[in-house]
């Protein structure tokens, strides 16, 4: 017999509650609380990094994907996508290290490294999503007298939106997960607490970085999921 959802949820809540008791009893909570000011300051840095690099990746990646999907780019698009695919295989840590080589330390290389890491899934999904729009829809739209721009904005993009959003969601997950590494090149963020905590074998400090990072990742993914559910028109949204 499979457990009912109510029972599963009850068990999960109980587990969280017990974990809380354990954390409180072991004194970890006080240890984490010691870093309250650091958490607030670094979390802000962290969020700025995620938002700016992720936002820039969306702003650059979607138009790039659209551009690659245009018939005039047909011959070159696959070559460009291959370059992007090779880019994806380079580990993000390596991308960050390489961008430090060029841009020095601090915010700019961190921003750039994260931007590049999140760009790829967005471009790829936008491109693939637009190509997957059935040819007969484009034919109907053109035959009814839409201009190329109208076909793109009213038919192609709305019908590719779900795939585009999935790319953005993946990109943001990669972005949030990679941002702690920004500390390694002087970009700041919650990685500072995590890496320092590891070096000093200070569990409290480590958790003071790790727990907010994890919470942020969950929150971003939740937000992206909600956006995907609500912003995509009902007719082309498999979620509703």
């Amino acid at each position, binding site marked *: 017999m499979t457990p009912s959802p109510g029972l599963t949820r009850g068990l999960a809540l109980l587990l969280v509650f017990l974990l809380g008791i354990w954390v409180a009893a072991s004194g970890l909570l006080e240890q984490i609380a010691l870093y309250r000011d650091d958490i607030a300051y670094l979390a802000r840095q962290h969020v700025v990094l995620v938002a700016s690099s992720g936002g820039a990746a969306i702003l650059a990646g979607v138009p790039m994907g659209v551009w690659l999907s245009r018939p005039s780019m047909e011959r070159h698009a696959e070559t460009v996508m291959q370059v992007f695919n090779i880019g994806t295989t380079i580990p993000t840590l390596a991308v960050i290290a390489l961008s430090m080589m060029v841009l020095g330390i601090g915010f700019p290389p961190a921003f750039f490294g994260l931007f590049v890491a999140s760009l790829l899934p967005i471009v790829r999904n936008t491109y693939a999503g637009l190509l997957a729009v059935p040819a*007969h*829809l484009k*034919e*109907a739209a053109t035959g009814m007298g839409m201009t190329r721009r109208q076909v793109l904005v009213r038919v192609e993009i709305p*019908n590719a*939106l779900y795939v585009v959003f999935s790319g953005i969601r993946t990109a943001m997950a990669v972005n949030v997960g990679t941002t702690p590494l920004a500390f390694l090149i002087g970009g700041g963020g919650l990685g500072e607490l995590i890496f320092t905590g590891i070096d000093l074998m200070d569990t409290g400090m480590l958790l003071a970085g790790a727990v907010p990072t994890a919470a942020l990742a969950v929150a971003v993914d939740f937000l992206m999921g909600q956006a995907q559910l609500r912003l995509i028109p009902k*007719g082309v949204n498999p979620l509703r």
Partner: protein
Amino acid sequence: MIRLEDLTKRFKTPGADIVAADRVNMEVPTGEICILLGPSGCGKTTALKMINRLIPPTSGKIYIDGRDTSGLDDIELRRNIGYVIQQIGLFPNMTVEENICVVPRLLGWDIRKARQRAAELLDLVGLDPRQFLRRYPKELSGGQQQRVGVIRALAADPPVMLMDEPFGAIDPINREIIQDEFLKMQAELKKTIMFVSHDIDEAVKMGDKIAIFRAGRIEQYDSPDMILAHPANAFVADFVGADRTLKRLRLLTAEAVATADAPVTSRSAKVADALQQMTAAGARRAVVIDGDHRPVGFVTAEEMSGAAGAVRDFAHPLPATVPLRADLRAVVSEMFAHDTMWLACTDDRGRFAGIITQPDVTAALRATYGPEKDALRRQEAP
């Protein structure tokens, strides 16, 4: 009116050029449906798509209502031509209402006027606007989607429509229903329609004219009856099928063939009176009708000759009756089913309206084979 003049399309491929349409000349009069018919790859779809320039013609001219369309902008031209495709092509991201309003909005109609039009059109094809306007295409059945596809093309009331196998993807039962609905609509709207099909039965049913294509050329452009009765060559004869004469049965209704002034009598009439009536009309049988003029039986001259009494003593029941509006295929089917040489016809209210005999039917089929029509055809032929 649509007129094509020397319309030609060559596709350049490595190796050889392919001629998809080779100097196509034809004219579709205003308010008629012209079916472009032929096997796949014969150039019928290419010819159609050159009209709204989804495929740019290599050479030749297209006139719509007397105007040369080559001077018009692509976008402007397309917005004034209704276009229906086999895959329907409803936009899944838009509601039914938004889909229907696409062209009116492109033409700059007021949103309220466009919406009102959408509701009217849904009503026209028997879909309740309150129920369907807000639905998305995926929430509609195939038949409903195609109805919406057709009315979307009609939304801005274009004088000309292009339909590329519009009913090809619908199951046979629904296809018949939608075809009938469409013909009823067309009888009122009188659009000038080019309609691509590969189904001879559909072509005969829907078309005022049929153009049969092969390898980019028109083999024959004629009325369905002429195509079936006088195929121009072996290819056309082969394409329309060995049963082409039977197909012609669908083109005529019982009304066109039936003898309306057949003698009638009533059950209580005297045999002598009935016989006299039949002799006067030169008929060997009379239909017995009731007080409401409904056919209830028949009597024959042989059985009654020399007898006395009332008609009711000699009356036989009728095996079947057919409505005047039935096509000859249904009539012949009834005749074969009941193994009879003739049937009584009834009007919409079930009253007797004449009789139809097997010789009448064969005479009707023979009609276009007559000498004067043949001569006429020879004059028209190039």
